[in-house]
């Protein structure tokens, strides 16, 4: 074949493909007239023309491609969306959550992009519903209030949450941080000054995690130390627990597990060890810091987290039971496990503070002052001759599937377990 003929074939093939692409593009999936697009939609949805005047317009809308997200004919989803509202954004924005992300913003994980973004347009960058931290504090209300009320603030926090956090997900860090601490903190804070070194007792804290002592959101303690500070930290006596700052391993502790804490908290440890039943994590390798943080905490008692989160580390089943329960038991609901339980040790099962469940419940429920079903050491449980009736005979304190923590769906079914002659 001659070169001229080959070139002609290539030319016509190219021309055909270009024309085909142009026609296909003009028609789109709904075979709209060329140039119709969003204009057609706006002929009815006139109010949207205002949306187009906003500073930031979502790209498909700006291009007049309403059908990028909506199906103009029919849909199984609200707002005639062409896909699930919690998934449709990912059709284009599929790289928002990196694979195997270390932390993901809950709303992002749930696909609730519209919690923060206006899908059409906004005067805020990235089509955000509100600018600055105000948007974050709509969900993180408690944190917002704490930041506003703190005696000692952290200036970047007052400016914008995004100074330290990434809003969607992070491949490398926990807590949606833009960098893990201390690297994040060291972007602003210089550690080579004499004052800094002196304040930190010459320990190489630039290698440690700042947030184990400081509350990055601010606090009511100087140097934004968390609100509850362990006495040795407050008194700058780090070497009470750690090796000397110029040693080979300055952060290594002098003893392990409870033995380290026992040096000061001997009374508490000795009392616990004198009880019949010990909370086993107290004497495992991690010891006290299974539940407590050794430096500073925003929780009382230097707890690592809220009490329900700390107890829930191991007893997630118990908390889940309460979540499922039709009736909430106030102390559990409020995360006050220690109203009933002694967290270190006890002479009774379940590490209860009181010897009997009747005494335990009576702390809040003054049944003694009212008429009550017979309970107590003299009342034998008809179901089991080795048991006497107490509160747990009818109620499961962490909750059941039924109301009032009853073991059965209705009172009659419960009663006839013992009062068998009334069984139907």
């Amino acid at each position, binding site marked *: 074949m001659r070169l001229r003929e080959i070139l002609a074939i290539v030319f016509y093939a190219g021309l055909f493909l270009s024309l085909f692409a142009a026609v296909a593009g003009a028609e789109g999936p709904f075979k709209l007239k060329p140039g119709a697009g969003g204009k057609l939609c706006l002929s009815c949805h006139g109010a949207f023309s205002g949306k187009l005047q906003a500073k930031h317009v979502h790209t498909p809308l700006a291009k007049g491609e309403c059908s990028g997200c909506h199906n103009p004919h029919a849909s199984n989803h609200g707002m005639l969306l062409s896909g699930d509202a919690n998934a449709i954004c990912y059709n284009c924005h599929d790289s928002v959550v990196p694979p195997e992300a270390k932390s993901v913003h809950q709303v992002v994980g749930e696909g609730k992009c519209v919690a923060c973004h206006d899908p059409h347009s906004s005067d805020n960058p990235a089509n955000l519903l509100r600018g600055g931290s105000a948007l974050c504090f709509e969900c993180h209300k408690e944190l917002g209030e704490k930041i506003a009320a703190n005696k000692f603030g952290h200036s970047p926090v007052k400016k914008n949450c995004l100074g330290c956090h990434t809003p969607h997900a992070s491949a490398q860090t926990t807590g949606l941080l833009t960098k893990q601490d201390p690297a994040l903190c060291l972007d602003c804070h210089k550690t080579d000054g004499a004052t800094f070194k002196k304040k930190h007792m010459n320990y190489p804290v630039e290698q440690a995690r700042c947030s184990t002592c400081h509350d990055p959101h601010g606090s009511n303690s100087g140097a934004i130390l968390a609100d509850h500070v362990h006495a040795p930290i407050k008194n700058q006596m780090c070497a009470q627990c750690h090796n000397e700052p110029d040693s080979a391993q300055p952060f290594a502790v002098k003893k392990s597990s409870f033995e380290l804490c026992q040096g000061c908290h001997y009374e508490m440890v000795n009392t616990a060890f004198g009880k019949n039943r*010990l909370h*086993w994590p107290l004497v*495992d*390798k991690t010891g006290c810091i299974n539940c407590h943080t050794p430096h500073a905490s925003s929780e009382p008692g230097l707890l690592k987290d809220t009490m329900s989160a700390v107890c829930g580390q191991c007893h997630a089943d118990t908390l889940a039971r309460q979540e499922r329960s039709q009736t909430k038991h106030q102390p559990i609901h409020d995360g006050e496990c220690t109203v009933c339980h002694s967290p270190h040790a006890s002479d009774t099962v*379940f590490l209860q503070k009181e010897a009997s469940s009747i005494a335990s419940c009576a702390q809040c429920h003054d049944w003694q002052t009212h008429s009550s079903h017979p309970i107590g050491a003299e009342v034998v449980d008809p179901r089991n001759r080795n048991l006497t009736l107490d509160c747990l005979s009818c109620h499961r304190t962490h909750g059941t599937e039924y109301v009032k923590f009853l073991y059965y769906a209705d009172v009659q079914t419960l009663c006839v377990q013992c009062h068998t002659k009334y069984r139907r």
Partner: protein
Amino acid sequence: MRQSSLHKILVCLLGVLVAAPVWAAKIKHQGTLYADGANLALNLPEGVACNEKSLVVADTANSRLVRYALTAQSLTPEAVFPLPEVVPLTLQTTAAGDIYLLNGKTREIVKVGRSGEVQGKVEPKGLPAPSAFVPRSFKLDKEGNIYLLDILSERVLVLDSSASYVRHLPFPQGYGFFSDLALSPQGGIYLLDSVAGALYLAAPGAQSFALLNSNLKEYVNFATSLASDGRGDLYLVDQYGSGLAMVGGDGGFKGRKFGMGWEDGQFFYPGQLCINDQGILAVADRNNNRVQVFNILED
């Protein structure tokens, strides 16, 4: 009914049968122990141990042990061993009838002779560093070797019958909290992680533990006691869920039995379980103040 609908239903039923775990053995309730020979009631019995001739109960809140003679699969109260100042939690017995118990108050293993005399605590000899240990649980093998679940130094210590150090295996990385261990008939060591709902195995001769199953939380709430039945299967006591679960030697879940309650065959926050070579399975039904005894029947 149209043939295609019938076909669909049969396929679904088959799918359910294939997907559902199969309980490999039947368990028949044999009896319930409520008291000693003098009719003094058990009080929060936490532990139970059994061999071919007897069953011993840790009558925890009464600070005593109660032994029952096991004859032709019937149980008769035989002896009571008061142990003031001791809080017996879990137990093991030897073929000769000696009893080892974990004292909850001192967190020590105490040896009690067949006649009930306290022979002293188990003090390991020749332990490599660290020398400190806290036993959360322990098991004996047929040779009398002691396997200590040392939660303080994160290891399983293997001691011979005279408490001399033989070897140790470090806990695996990333565990939640180990509550119990069990021995396979071949000499493997199983670890029960109550918090993560996981089971680990160190095969005979192995130097480390390997994860067998990390999904037990689907079937149990908070399992605290583990025993091997001598045929290769494992039984777990689900304390918070008041039930019993069975797992194959490979870690595969086989089924779940019983539930919370006060009748025979129901548990109320049970403690330890034991299984003997004759297929007797006993559970310290702690908060029901009793011990329930079952027979594991062949398939």
